[in-house]
Each structure stands twice: as structure tokens, then as C-alpha cells.
């Protein structure tokens, strides 16, 4: 590659079949600044958010670390022992309570933490009152990438990412379908030429026409329908952005490469193998800057998977197993092992002088704490990553006064650079954060 090309980001303008095509040559890793924290033009390395959710909580007595503070001042608990390899890269916050009324088992906690608002709707037909925190971040930073956000999961039908009431972002649970969506047609690997296709411009014209139709309809419908159509419109605008990205230079991140294709039939003898493959693909999507907001639902609320070597479904066991619930405990340890592996993989992706993990904030949590009683006390909150230097890592912060779990969410908002000064509504409202996990 000649210096000429490096110095001068050549823009080729062509006209093909009536559609304007913009071709820009990619920046290279050499264009990072000397300390590897930003591109040479001063653009910071992208900051990302990851939500890692698992079902049915944990057992607080087995989960809470021993000792508080930083570094060696605290030790991992039995349930957190599988996180030993990444202990210095994450913080654990215990003793907090999700403050919304605990009315809907598994969902009050998930919605109460991730939106900060009590769910709405009629008995039995609840829904989330607002967007989950990943979507709040997606509204801010999602426009920078090909996909505004991505939602994946190991199991079908789950997921805790919501755009708003009655609008869940369904988790993709097929590795093959996920691969095709991210790394199939439309994906441009670093160094590859942008896509030149006259139909891209035509597709954008169709989307414009569909938006006009939608706006016409909005004038006739009621308030709730208008909100639904607004959400649909925002999805259409995302698509326009995506089509535009296909014609631009691909993001250039050193660790990005096209992964191997998963098996076409999605057959896995071990579900956990599938979960790990989904994690690999999702992490590569982050490494390739296809999105900056990821929700990984290991298992969704009330999940009842029967783990290998365990006698009954996870949810059933949380209710039926006699204390101290050794099988539930074993499942939690298994989940923490998967979470630890996930964090470790994020930390293995090199970016500049650091890793992908250093440039993201990750929240690991569940829909409740003790599954047997659907408790919202002693809420499980694991915060991993550095958020580009904002978050302190390797901390155990423990509240002895049942502080509002929303404080952790406000710290995450701060870590992601949001200017909002508070999080949540009603009893879940807070304008305070957990200073101990921030730098």
C-alpha cells in the first residue's frame, strides 16, 4: 500500500446505472494515534455496551463476595469462583435492591432494573413501560454503525431488550441466521471494497415511499397507534442508514475478520456449545464495529432448560429444590462460567493498546436474586469492562442499606457518556451513582 493512498483518503465518485456510488478507501490500523486510544484524526475508539442476561437469579449467600474494596481486598464467592480469570476486569455490586413494586415474578426485576420503571398494562398482559437501557444507548450511538443494536441468545423466544411497550427486540437464536445477517451479503471486511450495487439506491427510494405512506397513516390513527408507527418508522430509518453504510468504507479494526460459517442446519448436541458460538459471532460483530450495542440473553426470564447432569428444569428447581438448593447452585456456577468465558473473549480482542473489553461497559444481571422467592433484594449486578477508562475494575462494592439498584444503571449511563442526570421513575428514581466503580 503506497503512502499516497494512506495520506489521501481518495473518494471515487462513479455513476452506475443511474445510482450515485461513493467509494472511500479504508483507514488502516497504522492510522491509530501513538498511544493507541484513538484514531490519528482524534476520533476516539468506539465505546460499546453489552448486556448479559441470565434467568432465575442466583443464591445470594453463595454469590456475595467476601470482603469489599479493590484488588486483593475481596475474594470471589463460591458462585463467582468461575470468574477468577477475569476478576481484575470486573466489579461486583451487591446488597442493592430493584425498587419497583415486585408484582410480576421475573419481570418486575428485569423491567424495573433495565428501564427503571414499573411495567404497565392489565393483569396478565404486562409490558415494559419504556425502552431497556441497551436501547437507550442505541438511540444515542446506534446510528454510527451498520446495526443500531444486536440481540442474540442461546435459547429461543427470550430476550430482555425492548424498544418500548409491546415492542421486544427478539433475540436471534440461530447461529447460522445470525451469521448470514451480519457477515453475509452486505458485510464488508476491512480492506475489502465497498459494495457497488445500483439496487441499493432503488431500495432507499422504496423506503422513502414507505415512510411517506406511514406518515399519511399516522395522521389518522390514535395516540397509541401513532407511537407504534413511530417505532416502525425508526426501524425504517435504521435500514436506510444500513444501506448507506454498504456504500461506504468498512470500519477498520485490527481484530476484525470474517468468521467461519456455522453449520447450516443449526444442529448442536450441546446447547452450551451453541451459546458459545453465538457469543463468538456476537463478539466478532463488536470487533468489526457492526454494532456498538449488544444484548446477549444467555437464558431469558423463567427459562426452564434442563442442564446436563441436573434433574429438572432450572426454573422448576428454583422453586422445588429444598434449601440449600445444591442443583440450583450448580447451575448458577455453570452460568457464571459461561459469563466468565464471555468476558475473557472480549478481553482477547486487541484494540489499539488495549482490548475490546477496555472499550466497553458490560452489565451482567438477571430478573431477580433468589429464585425461590422472586426476591428483588441482593440483586445480582456484575459490571465488566473499562468503558474507555471511565470504569474502575476489580471492585466489590456492597451496600448495607439496600440502596437503589438504579444507581448502577446511572453509573453505566455515565460510563457511556450520556448527559442524563438521573435514572428511573417513582421509587426506582435516582440521581446518584456508585462512585466506587467509577474512576
Amino acid at each position, binding site marked *: 500500500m503506497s503512502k499516497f493512498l494512506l495520506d489521501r483518503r481518495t473518494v471515487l465518485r462513479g455513476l452506475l*446505472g*443511474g*445510482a450515485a456510488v461513493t467509494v472511500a478507501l479504508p483507514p488502516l490500523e497504522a492510522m491509530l494515534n501513538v498511544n493507541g486510544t484513538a484514531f490519528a484524526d482524534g476520533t476516539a475508539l468506539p465505546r460499546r455496551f453489552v448486556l448479559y442476561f441470565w434467568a432465575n437469579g442466583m443464591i445470594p449467600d453463595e454469590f456475595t463476595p467476601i470482603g469489599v474494596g479493590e484488588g486483593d481486598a475481596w475474594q470471589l464467592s463460591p458462585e463467582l469462583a468461575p470468574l477468577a480469570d477475569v476478576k481484575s476486569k470486573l466489579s461486583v455490586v451487591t446488597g442493592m435492591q430493584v425498587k419497583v413494586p*415486585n*408484582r*410480576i*415474578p421475573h419481570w418486575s426485576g428485569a423491567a424495573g432494573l433495565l428501564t427503571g420503571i414499573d411495567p404497565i*398494562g*392489565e*393483569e*396478565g398482559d404486562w*409490558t415494559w413501560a419504556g425502552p431497556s437501557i441497551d436501547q437507550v444507548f442505541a438511540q444515542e450511538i446506534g446510528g454510527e454503525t451498520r446495526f443500531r443494536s444486536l*440481540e442474540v441468545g442461546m435459547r429461543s*423466544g427470550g430476550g430482555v431488550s425492548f*424498544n*418500548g*411497550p*409491546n*415492542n*421486544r*427486540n*427478539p433475540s436471534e437464536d440461530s447461529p447460522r441466521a445470525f451469521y448470514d*445477517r451480519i457477515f453475509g451479503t452486505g458485510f464488508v471486511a476491512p480492506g475489502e471494497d465497498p459494495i457497488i450495487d445500483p*439496487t441499493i439506491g*432503488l*431500495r432507499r*427510494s*422504496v*423506503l422513502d*415511499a*414507505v415512510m411517506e*405512506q*406511514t406518515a399519511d*397513516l399516522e395522521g*389518522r*390513527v*390514535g*395516540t*397509541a*397507534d401513532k407511537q*407504534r*408507527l413511530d417505532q*416502525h418508522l425508526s*426501524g*425504517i430509518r*435504521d*435500514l436506510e442508514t*444500513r444501506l448507506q453504510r454498504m456504500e461506504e468504507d468498512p470500519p477498520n479494526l485490527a481484530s476484525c475478520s470474517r468468521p467461519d460459517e456455522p453449520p447450516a442446519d443449526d444442529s448442536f448436541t450441546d446447547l452450551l456449545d451453541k451459546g458459545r458460538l453465538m457469543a463468538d459471532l456476537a463478539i466478532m460483530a463488536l470487533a468489526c464495529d457492526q454494532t456498538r450495542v449488544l444484548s446477549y440473553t444467555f437464558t431469558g426470564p423463567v427459562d*426452564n*432448560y*434442563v442442564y446436563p447432569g441436573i*434433574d*429438572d*428444569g432450572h426454573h*422448576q428447581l428454583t*422453586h*422445588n429444590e*429444598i434449601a440449600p438448593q445444591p442443583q440450583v447452585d450448580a447451575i448458577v456456577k455453570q452460568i457464571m462460567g459461561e459469563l466468565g468465558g464471555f468476558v475473557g473473549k472480549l478481553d482477547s480482542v486487541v484494540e489499539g493498546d488495549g482490548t475490546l473489553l477496555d472499550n466497553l461497559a458490560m452489565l451482567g444481571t438477571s430478573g431477580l436474586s433468589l429464585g425461590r*422467592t*422472586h426476591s428483588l433484594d441482593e440483586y445480582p449486578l456484575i459490571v465488566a469492562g473499562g468503558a474507555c477508562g471511565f470504569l474502575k475494575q476489580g471492585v466489590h462494592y456492597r451496600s448495607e442499606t439496600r440502596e437503589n439498584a438504579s444507581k448502577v444503571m446511572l453509573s453505566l449511563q455515565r460510563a457511556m457518556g450520556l448527559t442524563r442526570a438521573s435514572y428511573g421513575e417513582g421509587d426506582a428514581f435516582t440521581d446518584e451513582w456508585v462512585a466506587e466503580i467509577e474512576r
Partner: protein
Amino acid sequence: MPALTPEAPTLRRLTNDQFANTVRDLLGDDIVIPGELDPDSRVAGFLSAGASVAAFSPRGTENIESFAYILAAQAMEPDRRDLILGCTPSGTVDAACSRQFVEEFGRRAWRRPLSADEVERMATLADTAGDTLADFHDGLEFAIAGLLQSPDFLYRVELGADADGDLPRRYTDFEIASRLSYLIWNSTPDDALLDAAESGLLSTDDGLLAEVERLLAAPRATAGLQSWFSDWMHLADLPELYKESSVFPHMSDTLPDAAEQEALRTFAYVAIDTDGDLRDLVTTRTTFVDRELAALYDLRAPVRDGFAAVQHPEESMRRGLLGQAAFLALNAHPVSSSATLRGKFIREVFLCAQLPGPPADADTSIPPVTEEARTLRDRVQIHLTDPGCAGCHRNMDLIGLGLENFDGIARFRTMEEGAQIDASGELDEVPFADAVGLAEVLHGSEDFSPCLVKAMVRYSNGYREEPGQFEALEHLAELFAGDGHRLEPLVVELTTSPLFLQAGAVDDGPLEEAYE
């Protein structure tokens, strides 16, 4: 006429079944459906009502775009395009032909005529693309993709219109055409129904009744009305059925589908083929099994592949839907039965009771098997005696215990953990001895017949009934009972009643109230 305050109209997204049926009706039975829209969600017990509140996610919108082009390409394949294209293009751009196509195909896709502006908007897409790609048919794909991505296709836009003078608001004739065809066929109106709407026939009592009867007489009405039954019985949950195969060796990849077929065929037999009393769905000894279900039920296997009608013997405990794998396995756990889940389903779905959820902090553990308490009945005694539990659990468990002779996958059993099973129970203080007794008590319950009417109206109208509709519902329930609790008269009475035809005012008040 009973007093009626109709609900405010809302957009209803096409359910996944409706999307697939509609696309086949528009483009041909052999069209390949590219995939599913966002998952359906259930409200008031129905996916059909969830469609009144669900919004499309960004992922769903992305899928819709991709599906639209896959379908448009199929529509323009040389051997198919002549079926939907009513003109011969004169070149790569033929503005008259593209406009004619958008008018004709658009009316079917949007279930109403397009305005001149709308025709122009969509036809222009075809003209530009035809020019760019130097091919008329390739260009037309972009108009088709536009029509299929528009909210006018993806949602059922049934908003009603003000009538003359003091007359109540009513759905427009084209909207009524959609309401009829999605209720009876679970698909889009055919040309004859759209023509009836266009000519004003649906505004007349005779014209409306003639179309209702025509739709009901069509062979596809069976599949369409099976969709109501399927939604009512939550059969859409069957593909996700999860049973631990080490506990239930009869579990297989094909069992959920067979269980669905059995239930659907039983419904078609009772409700349509024999025009019977819908309450017989829970008492009939007739069912439909393939070899796999025959093995599960210890019946003689059908000689041929596929399903055959069989009669459970008189002494069998299996009766109707409550003895079938679909109901029994869906309302159970991965490794065990559940008297609570089965009782809850009967209470909520068959009797339309609204039960509060369990208190979030309730300790819901069931004691383990011990020497003294081996059966589920013995182990859930705390549900029935502890004052904190009994208020609700007696309403569920005492019904569900009547089905304890069927394990978590619907195998018959008389013993559990070495102890004899006692399957007696009670429903609204009427005692019964076993599953057969439960079926008979349910059949005679005064709540069952009106609940079937409510189930039809929730499905049809897409919302949970409000007090303003109670009187009209009671009136409809009386007509239903008077007609022998049969399906066809129920559909006729409903679709010709104000409950189906009248629309409330569009609710443009503040959003908070929409969720109260």
C-alpha cells in the same frame, strides 16, 4: 338491541399466520414464504389481540424489507407474473402498465382502492427501477416491494368512519370485508368480497349476510376457523414444547405436530363436519391419532400412515380436549404434570375467569416425595390448606387434580411413586370422581358457553371486552345457547351484530390513558 359502547379502533398487525395466508392468496399457493415477521405476542389470551398492541422491532422491519424483495422476485418469475399482471409492457418503462398493475394489485394487497397519489407514489418506483435496470419486470419488483412494506399491507387498518346524522360510527365497507375474511378465513379478502364492499352491498343486511354465508361455505373456512380454535387453545406454543426425554420416552421431535393435528381435527369434526355443540369438545370420545399418538394413548395404531378417527373405549379416562396430548403436555412441566397449570388453563381459557398472578414473594416450592406424601395431590396439600395459598389455588388445583391420571406428556397412569392416584376434585363446588367426571362438569358449567362467545369476540375484535360491551356479549351468548352452542350460527350472529360492525371513536387522548 342491547346497549353498546364499541372499543376505540386500533391498527392490528398481521399475525404470522395471516401474513403467510395473505401472501399465498396474493401471489399463489406455491409461493415460498421467506420467513416469519416479529414473533406474535398474546394479549387477553389471544395472539390475535396481541396484534392490536404489538409494534414492529427494527429487526422485524429489516426482515420485512428482505421478505418483500424475495416475494417480489418470485411474483415476477416468468411463469407466475402473467397471473397478477394485467397488461403487456411496451418497453422497459411503461407508465400506463405499471399504474394499472399498482391499482389492481394494490387494491388486493391493501384491501382497499388506492388514492391517485398512492398509485403515483408506488408506480414511480417501478418506472425509475425499470429505467435503471433496463427491464420492466425487474422494475416492477420495486413497486411490489413498496406495497408489501407499507403499513397499509402489514397492518389491518380498520379505523371506522363517521356515519350520517346521529348514527353510530361504523367500520367502512372495505374494513368490514377485511374483518370478515380474517375472522372466517384468517386471510385477505378475495376479489368477490372486495367487489361487494366497493358496490356497497356490505352496507345492506342481505348483502352482508350473503357474503358471511359465502365465506363460511368456502372450503377454506375450515382452516380459517381452526385458527380461532388454535389461538384459543394456545396451540402455537406446541413447537416450543419441551419435555425431558429421559423422563418421558414418548417425547419426540414429531410429537408436538401430531398433538396439534389431533386437536385441530377434533375441532373440525365437532364444530364443522358434524355442526355439533361446541361444548362437546371436552366430552367427545372421538379423536384423531397417528401411529405415534396411538402408542402414547395405548390405542390400536391406524393401518395407514397419517391420521385416523378413533373412539376411546367407554371405560377410558380420555375425553375430548382434556384427554389430549396438546392440552395435557402444554399445561405441565418438563419432567412432571401440573395440577395448577392445568386447572389455571381451564379456569382462564374455558371459563374466562381472570386469576391474579402469584404474589411475587410467595414461596412456591412443592414439597418433595416422601414416604407419606408420594402423589402430587399429597404434596400440594399446602396449596389447599394454607390460607395464603388456598384462596387462589383451590380455584385451580382442585380442577387440575382431576387430570392426575395423565402424566406430563399425557400418558395414562394409575400410580405415582408407588401410590394410587386419587383423581377426584371439584369445579365450582360440584364434585367429580375423575377426568370423565371433570369433563362432564365442565360441559355443564354455566360459565363455559358464554366463555366460548367471549373467546370468539376477543379473537375477532382483537381486545379484551370492556363493560361497554358486556350487554351485547350477554345477548350474543343467549343467541349462541339458543342455536345449540354451534359455531356457524355464532359466527353469523356476531358478524351481523353491532359488536362487530360498529367502531368507537379513534382515541387520540394522552398516551398514559391508553395503558390504564
